[in-house]
């Protein structure tokens, strides 16, 4: 959202949307600038400063990519995908196999990963043309599970069960560089996703999510755009999967179990469907960098362990407990997720007047109270 609105203010100045004569005051601009600078400092300097932390931060980056990918299906097309770990896994295996076994250069391996998952997504998209809602969710579920027990078990791919090595090129061996590289790719993906919501593609997807007949009456090729959405989602998931593989430099089938798919859905819903900022925040929260990491911080760990009834033995369940709690409160109280709760802040950061009631001029991708219709 912040990205979207910042751009809207910067570029569309003079259009009716910007007609509201609010302009941030100079101190306001400085304050916003300081906040952005602070965020940039944390993201670009603090996180990668330590190799271990940089590694975990790159996990978060990969999760964020998956989040954006999944948001295209759940948010924009309104379908539920419970098999996204299948895409990510296929991307990881494709990259690892093509680079290690076939000797493909790093970037080619990334492209192969994207192409392979793109094809998988196209197949799933063809199914989605005929089936929607709950039944499609079931099919995606089966898709993921099937990949788990078939493709991810093939000896040739998994290197006989030990895992397929996926060695980073020399220039990426340092975790901090890998993190920067992932961040750069994420930036590109966010940009594309933002362009998607701001051009005819986003409007077409929104229209066909709400009513395919209306979309067709507007001249929108329902079939093509549905497939496009699935393929885009698959390609991004494939790229994320390839990075996932390179992050640990080894890919095993066990990495991509159904629980991962649930985590993906959870992070997107809790983060806030149709909101880039929300999805990224949700992804960070549910990635190993987020809640899991939180309870590894000594002071937090000791504090929680000291709470009667939790103790040392149960602290490992805390991230999942919190995740479940966040899901419940999202579903019951604020269907827009974290993004909805942060909207006053993000829209203020985007140069709007601070208002707790949000603004009406949200872009096409932002739908109040929308959720996956299963």
């Amino acid at each position: 959202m912040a990205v979207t609105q910042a751009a809207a203010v910067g570029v569309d100045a003079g259009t009716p949307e910007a007609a509201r004569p609010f302009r941030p005051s100079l101190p306001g601009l400085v304050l916003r600038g300081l906040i952005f600078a602070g965020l940039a400092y944390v993201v670009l300097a603090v996180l990668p400063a330590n190799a271990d932390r940089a590694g975990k931060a790159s996990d978060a980056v990969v999760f964020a990519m998956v989040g954006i990918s999944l948001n295209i299906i759940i948010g924009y097309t309104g379908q539920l995908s419970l098999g996204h770990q299948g895409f990510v896994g296929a991307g990881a295996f494709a990259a690892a196999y093509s680079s290690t076994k076939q000797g493909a250069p790093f970037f080619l391996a990334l492209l192969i990963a994207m192409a392979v998952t793109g094809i998988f997504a196209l197949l799933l998209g063809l199914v989605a043309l005929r089936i929607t809602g709950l039944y499609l969710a079931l099919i995606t579920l089966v898709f993921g599970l099937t990949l788990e027990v078939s493709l991810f078990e093939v000896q040739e791919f998994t290197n006989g069960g030990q895992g397929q090595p996926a060695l980073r090129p020399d220039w990426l061996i340092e975790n901090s560089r890998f993190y920067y590289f992932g961040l750069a790719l994420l930036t590109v993906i966010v940009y594309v996703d933002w362009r998607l919501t701001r051009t005819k593609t986003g409007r077409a997807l929104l229209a066909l999510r709400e009513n395919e007949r209306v979309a067709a009456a507007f001249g929108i090729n329902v079939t093509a755009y549905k497939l496009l959405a699935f393929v885009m989602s698959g390609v991004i998931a494939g790229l994320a999967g390839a990075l996932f593989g390179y992050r640990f430099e080894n890919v095993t089938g066990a990495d991509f179990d159904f629980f991962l798919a649930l985590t993906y859905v959870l992070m997107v819903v809790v983060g806030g469907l149709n909101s880039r900022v929300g999805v990224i925040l949700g992804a960070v929260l549910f990635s190993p960098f987020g809640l899991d990491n939180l309870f590894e911080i000594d002071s937090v760990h000791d504090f929680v362990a000291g709470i009667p009834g939790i103790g040392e033995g149960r602290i490992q369940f805390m991230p999942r407990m919190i995740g479940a709690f966040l899901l419940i409160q999202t579903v019951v109280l604020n269907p827009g997720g974290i993004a909805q709760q942060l909207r006053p802040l993000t829209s203020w950061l985007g140069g709007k007047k601070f208002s707790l009631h949000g603004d009406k001029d949200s872009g096409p991708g932002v739908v109040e109270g929308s959720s996956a219709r299963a």
Partner: protein
Amino acid sequence: MPVLEVRDLSIRFGGLQALEGVNIDVNEWEIVGLIGPNGAGKTTAFNCITGFYKPNTGSVRYRGQDVTRMPPHRKAAMGFGRTFQNVGMVKSATALENLKTAQHAKIGYDVMSGLAGASATWREEKELEDKANAILDLLDLSSIRSTKVGGLSYGTLKLLELGCALATDPDILLLDEPSSGMGPDESDELGERLLVLRKEFGLTMLLIEHHVPLVLRVCDHVYVLNFGRLLAEGQPSVIQTHPEVVAAYLGGEAPEALAQTQVTDEDAALDEATSDALEHDAADAPARRTPARKTSPRKAAAKASTKSAAKSAAPKATAAKSAAPKATAAKSAAPKATAAKATAPKPAASEGTPAAAKKAPAKRAPRKVAPADETASMQAGADEETA
């Protein structure tokens, strides 16, 4: 060459023959009405024409080109603009966004350059927005520019939907009940708007409409559907008095009308004579309900003198009958109408009719027959219609 040429259109849903052998011609610049009772197949015909349904038989030709099997989005791109009975718009988007979405088919940039953010994309997005704003201004809807469509009133929605259909840059506009949800004044205004739009955009229109004054006001030609068949066609004023049409609308469901009607052989014979006398008639006699026979003899009598005079007089008979569906009222009124016509000049008779009919009928007949009736100002034949 007609802009739209529908030939022998038939479609069947399971055991229901929704349309059978329907022929519709829409010529350049014409506004053609498609009317008929509930379930007559009007919207089905729209869906066949715009490509949402694939007809079992028959063809749809657009400016000479066979487009029967063309998918709806391609038809939209080639110039079929349409609206929906239950408002077809993206509810969670703003009015402006909807108007931009509706211009989809006319957008020149492709998806990939859009995603890449090529400069041409930005320029064109700006143009889309300008056009959307122009349409909002044209329809006096500028105030709802940034309002989410889901929160608008039904009448406004209908108008905005018309705007969206215009935004698709249509050549022929198919409007499904554009005036539903509007009061009498608003629908008068809509009629004016349609005429202006036709003039400004050079549009051809086919509209499903129940609001009879609007049909009379704007339509050049009217087709009447009943039970999936074409019942009649002709000029609106002629159609209004057409006995078959009147019968189809009043149907057999108006109990008072039924009770007071005794069908005699002579009546039936007269009825048939009338049908023959009137120009087009696709319906089969057995399908007619009794009220048809009730009204038609009078008309047949009138017709015997002069055909055109009968037409102008008949609405009064119809109106009187539906207004007070009592045997006495109807019977006393009808001869009067005929007499009035004989003396009064023709235009006066036909002009007085809609007004007379407008006041009376709304109360009773609709309540009996069509509980969902929404527009109180519906008149004579239109009474039975529901949205």
